[in-house]
């Protein structure tokens, strides 16, 4: 099971009857995504935009043979909804909510791995394969098909990047928001084998930021297993220590762990090209593709 969202994706929207859920279901349908079911406990039997709604993910899976779900539910209900999706056997679970309690994400991170589920997010814009399908809330008009695969902790830095790419005529194979929270369901390193194997991806872009060790772990993996060129941007070089920069995950420990300097050094040692900012990143890409 690839984590890519494309024509073969049959998507469930959990929280489809909510304001956000309905709005983005419409957007996703418009973009060509096969939204096959919605789930809202207590609203089973109804329809939203022609999509049948079920009380449980289990029933939605059985009735529609869905293979992915995106969760438009508030952070305080995220754990319960993602837990249900994982236990019900959905192979790809994409979570949007920002500010999920850390202890709940710790549990979900391991639960998903143990059950063989690919969990994306939280605090993620979702996944888009431009021109094919999207699962998430990203402003899809700025994306265009191409051969750059992007994975990003930040939505806005990804938007800025694809916006500048479009001006230069460079498109994307797949863009994934791994999310800005402290504990992601899936990490950069988890994504790399898929981008490495993906025939549509020629160059891999990693938009990281300060905090945590995901970029370092990705560098380790790249060194050993990735043959495609990787370009990285680390945001937050000038952020003060011990202060979260908005993303719960973007925080350098008082002892310096998670600093941009370290991340850039490790990435460079792994053969990754590092950019100063989004415009610089796109300049580098223009010279590559």
């Amino acid at each position, binding site marked *: 099971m690839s984590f890519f969202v494309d024509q073969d994706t049959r998507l469930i929207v959990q929280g489809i009857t909510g304001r956000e859920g309905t709005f983005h279901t419409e957007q996703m349908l418009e973009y060509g995504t096969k939204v096959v079911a919605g789930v809202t406990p207590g609203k089973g039997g109804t329809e939203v935009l022609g999509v049948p709604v079920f009380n449980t993910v289990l029933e939605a899976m059985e009735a529609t043979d869905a293979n992915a779900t995106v969760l438009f539910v508030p*952070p*305080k209900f995220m754990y319960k909804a993602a837990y249900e999706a994982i236990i019900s056997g959905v192979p790809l679970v994409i979570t949007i909510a920002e*500010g*999920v*309690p*850390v*202890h709940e994400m*710790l*549990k979900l*991170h*391991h*639960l998903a791995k143990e059950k063989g589920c690919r969990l994306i997010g939280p605090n993620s814009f979702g996944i888009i394969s431009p021109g094919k399908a999207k699962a998430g809330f*990203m*402003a899809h008009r700025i994306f265009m098909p191409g051969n750059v695969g992007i994975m*990003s*902790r*930040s*939505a*806005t*830095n*990804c*938007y*800025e990047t694809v*916006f*500048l790419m479009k001006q230069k005529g460079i498109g994307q194979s797949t863009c994934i928001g791994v999310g*800005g929270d*402290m*504990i992601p369901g899936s990490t950069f390193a988890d994504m790399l084998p898929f981008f490495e194997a993906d025939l549509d991806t020629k160059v891999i872009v990693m*938009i990281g*930021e*300060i*905090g*945590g*060790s995901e970029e370092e*772990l990705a560098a380790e993996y790249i060194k050993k297993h990735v043959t495609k060129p990787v370009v990285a941007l680390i*945001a*937050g*070089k*000038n*952020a*003060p220590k011990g*202060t*979260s*920069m*908005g*993303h*719960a995950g*973007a925080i350098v420990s008082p*002892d310096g762990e*998670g600093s941009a300097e370290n991340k850039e050094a490790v990435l460079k040692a792994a053969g990754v090209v590092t950019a*100063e*900012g*989004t*415009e610089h990143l796109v300049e580098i890409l223009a010279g590559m593709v």
Partner: protein
Amino acid sequence: MKLLEYKAHELFKRFNLPCSDGNVAVSLDELKSLKGKVNFPAVIKAQVQTGGRGKAGGVQFAENDAELIEKGTNILDMKIKDLPVNRIFITDKVEIDKEMYLSFTLDRKHKKTVMIFSPEGGVDINEIAEAHPEKIVKVLINPADNIDDFVIEYAMDKTGLDRSYLDEFKNVCKKLYDVFINMDCMLAEINPLIIDKNNKIIALDGKIDIDDNSLFKHRDIRIFKDEIEENPLALDARNFDFLYIPVKDEGNISVVSNGSGMIMSSIDLIAKKGMTVTSALDLGGGATAERIKEALRIVASNPKVDTIFINIFGGITRCDEIANGIKSAMKDLGKTRLVTRLEGTNKEAGLEILKSIDADIQLADGLVNGVEKLAQEMLV
């Protein structure tokens, strides 16, 4: 959110961790009302959100009620690192035989809980790590699991804590783990965890840091958040669901943007040009004109700020709304200079509005161009 010592102590009591009695006072009256409730000799400790209170005289001993009132009042009148001491915490002075360290925190790399124990304690864990690395043991615990007896025994065996303390130590570990899990802690620390003259293990002082995103589950803690927030602008911003981030004291620029990534990118590029950002404000999604106005008011109210860099990449956010917000904010901003970069939905309409304003607003096309304009502005 980091809890003050007295609040951490309250949690320790609630979860039945062995610790001595404690009392809190915020005023002379409250100090007087403690007569007969305090065991002497006692320790009086200033409750402030900063380190180094010991050196500043914020920790003192009292042998009797008279001394308690005299020294307590004295501490309540102090400022420690510019922070007023609003509250003191009074506990028994304990006879210490041995100081140890125990904590549970997150290991982001492994996405697990890590238990850290050292039979050396009383100072910062980083100092222990430098002086006695062999006396620190770290064990990873799966997030969904309880803390197992064998983990605790392993920690004892590795550090050489005598097995005669097994039961008491297990009890302390399990109770502190309960605090860590049930209170959604980022950190639950006892330092020093002491063995007293009667060979009892007691939690003498603690640090608790609770996940802000979990506070909806902990209403009793939530109400203390505003109380201990030291930055009035951050408080002001939170009322509008903005995030206000103090960056560097010496700067003069404030960044207003939508999205954490965009804010970090802006600060990075500005710093690279040799300028210094003092604060940033994250608008979040879907800002209206009215909210933009409030955001600009908040960052501008810091007298150090003479320039605001507004960087908006609008998806759901409409650029004309932003522009109208800027327009209506102008009269509050005084001499503050604005550099504005708008992109996305209704960009042209937004630019038209901004051009119509009779004020010094630099308009930029793109983030790099924006930072260049900002640099030019600084030269003026």
